[in-house]
């Protein structure tokens, strides 16, 4: 018993001839259908190229426009010819001119011989398919499609909408349950002849002539009527991209195709010499007869679709420039923004770097230069510490920084003295974790040796900027994880917030903090605030600092966590 191949060809006829010869020389009859739109000389060339083979036939030619009946008509005629001319054929395998056998014919024959009654055809009810691109499922069967989708897309779409609106619905012939599936099948003589010789064939053909993409539904539906044993999968490896077009296989896919263990793959790039040489001429064999398993290489293809549609989060580059809210993540990874901490504590960055095991930057948005960790002048990705370069495109600077350091958590200081261009960007970024000690900017002023009128002016300026910034953080658009303490609150009990920040930065080192950074000297700070008030400036962001009485951190020792034993 043998398997026969029906090949539907329309381009790269030289390759089709090679493949047909491969099969025919190995005692598999081949019936070739060539699209009627192919020019006569090319067709004659193909006939001449295969003239020496006794088991190759050419069937009557139909114009096969994608999505129309022509392909089914061509298949029917070619299959009829196959069944009539080659009596020994038990399975008929439908392939295209750009298919390539991946495993020796012998293996396929053995495989089919051990499953003599099985029809391999993907056939799924319309409600269960997830892969139809363009949204037409059941409507393929109930609407009319007289206009070409390729050439007259607008009229096509308009007519579909029109039919939906007026509620037009064709009746599916009694007894048929619409099924969809891959166009490439392998059916037994019994089933195929039952379909082709069915007494209702004229009627069903008339119905399917107006169905959209009948090549994906005609045999898939009919097989359910006549087959006793449908195995709903295709033996042909065929992958589709985000537009529903088949992926093309190139020379560099050699290993991938081998790994799939499928019998036939589609579609092969005609110039992929290495693939054709390898699979047609050096029949490898030797491999164990594995079950075809296209699932093994699925991941690669689903990743490609995801890359095309969703892209990499936080990346802005020459072929990915999302509109607002289409970013799929404004930045590439979580990062921490710490506001006021380096003012409240001495040497905070060094301490944080040590405790959280990461490099903590200074004020990245400082007006004079970018304070990268370790005072570096060029940071990861060759980001420069020049303030002018950063301020030319601050959001790009930040998203670049986060992108360049994927895998290494970034923390940086921020405050009202810095450039504020990124306020909104960070506030609306779910990756940002913003911790604010409001009013902490007053501490350096308190320690500074300026004239009090200058201090007062500066304090007013900073307070205005920080109030605006906090306004942004509190807006209902904000998506970042935001925590705000007033200075007074924080100084009273600094360990709790610090612990939570460190936990966020390095969640795996579930360690209690034992050593706090050194608090700045706040002796007389309350009086300082009162002096500001006396000068007519109202410091509000620090919270309640009682005059005269200096705040003392509640405990220098850590309170023990409550333990339940």
């Amino acid at each position, binding site marked *: 018993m043998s398997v026969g191949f029906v090949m539907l060809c329309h381009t790269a006829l030289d390759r089709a001839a090679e493949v047909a010869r491969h099969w025919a020389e190995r005692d598999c009859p081949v019936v070739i259908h060539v699209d009627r739109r192919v020019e006569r000389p090319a067709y004659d060339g193909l006939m001449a190229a295969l003239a020496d083979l006794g088991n190759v036939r050419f069937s009557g030619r139909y114009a096969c426009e994608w999505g129309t009946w022509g392909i089914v008509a061509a298949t029917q005629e070619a299959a009829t010819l196959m069944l009539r001319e080659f009596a020994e054929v038990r399975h008929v395998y439908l392939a295209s001119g750009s298919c390539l056998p991946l495993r020796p014919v012998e293996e396929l024959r053995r495989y089919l011989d051990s499953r003599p009654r099985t029809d391999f055809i993907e056939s799924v009810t319309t409600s269960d398919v997830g892969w139809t691109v363009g949204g037409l499922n059941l409507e393929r069967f109930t609407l009319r499609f007289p206009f070409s989708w390729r050439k007259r897309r607008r009229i096509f779409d308009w007519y579909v909408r029109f039919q939906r609106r007026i509620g037009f619905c064709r009746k599916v012939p009694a007894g048929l349950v619409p099924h969809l599936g891959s166009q490439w099948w392998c059916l037994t003589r019994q089933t195929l002849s039952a379909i082709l010789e069915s007494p209702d064939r004229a009627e069903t053909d008339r119905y399917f002539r107006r169905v959209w993409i009948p090549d994906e539904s005609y045999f898939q539906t009919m097989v359910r009527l006549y087959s006793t044993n449908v195995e709903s999968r295709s033996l042909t490896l065929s992958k589709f991209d985000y537009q529903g077009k088949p992926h093309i296989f190139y020379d560099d896919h050699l290993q991938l195709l081998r790994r799939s263990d499928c019998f036939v793959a589609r579609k092969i790039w005609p110039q992929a010499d290495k693939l054709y040489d390898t699979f047609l001429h050096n029949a490898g064999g030797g491999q164990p007869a594995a079950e075809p398993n296209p699932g093994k290489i699925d991941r690669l293809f689903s990743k490609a679709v995801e*890359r095309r549609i*969703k892209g990499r989060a936080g990346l802005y580059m*020459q*072929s990915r420039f999302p509109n607002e809210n289409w970013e799929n993540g404004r930045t590439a990874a979580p990062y921490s923004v710490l506001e006021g901490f380096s003012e409240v504590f001495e040497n905070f960055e060094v301490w944080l770097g040590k405790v959280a095991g990461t490099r903590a930057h200074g004020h990245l948005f400082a007006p004079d230069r970018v304070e990268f960790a370790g005072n570096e002048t060029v940071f990861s990705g060759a980001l420069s510490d*020049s303030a002018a370069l950063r301020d030319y495109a601050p959001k790009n600077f930040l998203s670049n920084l986060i992108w360049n350091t994927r895998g290494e958590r970034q923390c940086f200081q921020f405050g009202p003295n810095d450039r504020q261009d990124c306020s909104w960007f960070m506030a609306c970024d779910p990756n940002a974790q913003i911790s604010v000690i409001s009013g902490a900017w007053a501490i350096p002023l308190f320690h500074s040796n300026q004239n009090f009128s200058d201090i007062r002016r500066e304090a007013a300026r900073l307070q205005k900027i920080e109030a605006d910034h906090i306004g942004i953080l509190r807006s209902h658009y904000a998506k970042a994880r935001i925590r705000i303490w007033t200075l007074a609150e924080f100084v009273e009990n600094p360990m709790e917030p610090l612990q939570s920040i460190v936990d966020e930065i390095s969640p795996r080192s579930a360690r209690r903090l034992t050593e706090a950074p050194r608090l700045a000297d706040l002796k007389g700070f309350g009086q300082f605030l009162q002096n500001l008030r006396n000068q007519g400036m109202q410091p509000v962001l620090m919270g309640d600092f009682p005059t005269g009485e200096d705040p003392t951190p509640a405990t220098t020792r850590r309170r023990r966590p409550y333990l339940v034993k």
Partner: protein
Amino acid sequence: MARLREVALRVWGCASPPQAFSAGQLGLPELSILAMWRAYRLRLRRRAFLVRALRKRREIRVVADRSAGIAKGAILAFVTVRNEALRLPYFLQHYRKLGVDHFLFVDNASTDGTTDLLAAQPDVSLWSTGAGYKAARFGLDWLTGLMWRHGAGHWCLTLDADELLVYPYCETRPLRALTERLASEGRQSFGAMMLDLYPKGALDAQIYQPGQDPLEVLPWFDSGNYVVQVQPRMRNLWIQGGVRARAFFAAEPRRAPTLNKVPLIFWRRGYAYVNSTHAALPPHLNAVFSETGGELLSGILLHTKFLPVVVEKSAEERERREHFANSAFYESYYAGVMASPDLWCPASRRYDGWRQLEALGLMSRGGWV
């Protein structure tokens, strides 16, 4: 009054469009009378380019015309050169390997044997001219004329001699595979950003032989300091940054060289490049990026400007004042290059093939597997 103004703005579009959108600000193209007027202005501009180009065809003189051998569907490369005998052997080798079928060169008064070298190549058609480079829109007028005649209906690369194209899978799939992929996605243009390569050590301390792979001398690049914006007028990209911004334009980043390019286009008569190959008209050719978060297929032009000859060439370019529209602004840049600095820094990356560039997010394979 305010209401009236609001209505007027809605009908006419905003009074003056912003110069560039930064990331996340790009809005939908507007529909208004003013937008239509702007589209019409672009059309006029494109036609003006074409008229210029057709007029300037007289400036170039044929040296070797083998264009009769251009087959249907051939992939063409259009290049303007001046004194590039050093780079051309590898340039030709690189693009032949990628599958360019025919090269069309315009030689702008070379004195170093470039003309003879090119005239001797079997797959090169050569024209030459002594006219001004800047006056011909940096050579574009000459090329546009040639493309009008020979480029229509072909995928055309427009290049400089110091640009080497890489794209996803370029070592295994020739350009034809790429163009077929682009066509199947319904695209007519392909974006490729310029990536400046540089050596470790002083620029003029390196040695480069003609025919040598420039990457052996210039293996380093800046991987993550690029500024991406979109200019709304033609909705084209505006990418700046990289080593030149870092080393020479840190004080004035706005002046830093533009890096985005659209070097590969399925050409039709009536198309025109606007400003080098940074942007093209009609504007849909500039849609080489996805606005909805996905990634389109894109490539990289490896820019081998910083071969050791750059130091003496800069001196010459500075004298000729033919390379920038506003040459005066670039005095300090030339001075910087002529001082032969060391552009390398500890954060520089060493080039390691297209997969590295793809992983770094400098280019993308889109959905191409």
